[in-house]
């Protein structure tokens, strides 16, 4: 178990290093740079600024500097937000994204799995069709439509919840969490339903039914374990994506998370910030994949010896 985790962490670090290396060079191949703007500045000033950020050095030297910083947990200063280091920016935005994302993942997992089970148990019944409808709506209507619609209903008309911002405690959380969870509820419920229906056809579930242990015990003790494995495999990477923020959610609800930095940093050629956020997302993705594998091995004994 410990050896497995250790090995996966080591492999994960190698993957992460390959990821940042690739990002580092690809980003620099793209035209433009942090300080190439339409605004005319004298060549001397331009050169000074670039020298301050070591952009005048050969690229391999810049890369060495970046890796050296990385080993000291220093991601360097942002080229866009003067006086802020990349670490500061991530540390200030991440808690918001993390809070909203974690609640959204929990909500999506609980509601999605419950709807999926209910649909599979009473196939073609009311719950199944209701869940199917929610699923289609959740997948088909984009966040930037559902978000404002819910804002109009619950914030503007009913005035139960704030339109946006982070100043109202848990009430600020409700709308962004629900909107972020909705497409995932839709996807997870479809996935759970399909997986449940497939598992219910398994011979070992038939054995359980033949034992006369009743529907609840059959579901909880036999059908569910196998049926949830694909759902868990989806939840791992999805969690990494959700908790690192969404530019749409943060823009719609005016939240100070890090999701918008993902896009802004790339557009502004804020090299250090792009590297920092890529590193964060990559690390979380690898981490949650390891967690997923651990949960799957915990459920399925056949996977335990394979590692």
């Amino acid at each position, binding site marked *: 178990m410990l050896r497995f985790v250790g090995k996966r962490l080591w492999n994960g670090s190698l993957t992460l290093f390959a990821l940042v290396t690739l990002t580092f060079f690809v980003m620099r191949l793209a035209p433009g740079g942090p300080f190439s703007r339409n605004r005319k500045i004298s060549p001397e000033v331009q050169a000074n600024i670039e020298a301050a950020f070591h952009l005048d050095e050969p690229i391999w030297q810049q890369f060495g500097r970046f890796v050296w910083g990385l080993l000291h947990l220093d991601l360097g200063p942002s080229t866009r937000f003067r006086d802020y280091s990349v670490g500061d920016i991530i540390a200030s935005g991440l808690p918001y994204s993390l809070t909203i994302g974690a609640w959204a993942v929990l909500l999506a997992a609980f509601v999605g799995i419950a709807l999926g089970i209910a649909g599979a148990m009473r196939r073609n019944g009311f719950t199944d069709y209701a869940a199917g409808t929610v699923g289609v709506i959740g997948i088909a209507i984009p966040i930037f439509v559902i978000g404002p619609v819910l804002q109009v209903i619950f914030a503007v008309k009913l005035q139960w919840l704030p339109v946006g911002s982070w100043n109202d405690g848990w009430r600020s959380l409700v709308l962004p969490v629900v909107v972020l969870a909705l497409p995932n509820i839709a996807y997870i419920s479809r996935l759970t339903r399909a997986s449940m229906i497939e598992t219910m056809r*398994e*011979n*070992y*579930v*038939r*054995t*359980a*039914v*033949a*034992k*006369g*242990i*009743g*529907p609840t*015990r059959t579901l909880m*003790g*036999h059908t569910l*374990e*196998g049926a949830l494995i694909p759902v868990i495999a989806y939840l791992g990477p999805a969690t990494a994506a959700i908790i690192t923020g969404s530019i749409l959610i943060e823009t719609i609800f005016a939240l100070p998370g890090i999701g918008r930095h993902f896009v802004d940093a790339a557009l502004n050629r804020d090299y250090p910030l792009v590297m920092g956020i890529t590193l964060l997302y990559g690390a979380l993705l690898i981490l949650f994949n390891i967690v997923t594998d651990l949960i799957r091995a915990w*459920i*399925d*004994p*056949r996977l335990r010896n394979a590692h």
Partner: protein
Amino acid sequence: MTAETLLSLRGLTVRFRLPHGETVAVDGIDLDLAAGEVLGIVGESGSGKSQVLYSLMGLLAANGRAGGQALFEGVDLLSLSRRQLDTLRGQHISMIFQDPMTSLNPYRRVGDQIAEGLIVHEGLSRSAAQAEAVRMLDRVRIPDASNRARRFPHEFSGGMRQRVMIAMALLTRPKLLLADEPTTALDVTIQAQVLDLMAELARETGTAIILVTHDLGVVARLCGRVAVLYGGRVMEEAGAQALFSTPAHPYTRGLLDAMPRLEQALTPRLGTIPGTPRSGGGDVIGCPFAPRCTERIARCTTERPAFLERSHLGGTRSAACHLIPEVAE
């Protein structure tokens, strides 16, 4: 129905609704089973033999419907709700399935799976049920049973898994054991071993067995009585000895001719039954075997032969065939 009759099937039918109509898998079967008796049901693939067992256990596919009566100690199994059926199945009626590789839950310890029935049906504590499970594993000759009970199914061979299934099925000392081709998926070398073990333990607990198989050798080995199924109907039913020595129905004769025998090892070819087995389809007016029967007469395709007792043929024997006289001539 005599006092000791355990199971009595009367006009049992199983029908499946399909997009393009209905298919009849079991077409009116009458069979009786006494307590402790071993009855073999033989037939080709698609003869409906497995569906008979599934209908008794409430395990038919969602589009399947069972009709007629299946009286277990006087209670019609087909009329029970799922909840009522759950008080019988797994406790008084158990089932062993064809494929032991997939019939055990891969995610749960073997001991837990065996013990589960006792916990639910007899209210035993987890540890008491576990102890019973280990004792039962020992009786099906799983070596080192107490350690093995803590293992997972993938750590067992096919033969061992089927012995686990037997342990699970017989743990509650059921009155009836339904065995659906229990050794078909196993290695030939251990088939007899597993069957003998099943029969031996069933004898000890006084459990009656319905053994569904297409292997006539298995029937000869274990069964007191045999019912031969074709096209969802019983063609002939008799004591195993009588059936093998003097088969009355043309289909039974064809089936026996197709079986290799040691004393005929030099015969160049095995007998075959011409045509292809009937499988599914709608209602049949005459005898389902008529299209393949070499002794067919005109009545066979127009009139359904009644399944009648023909005691003049020796022993207790019933058959459904126009060619067999109803009384001694």
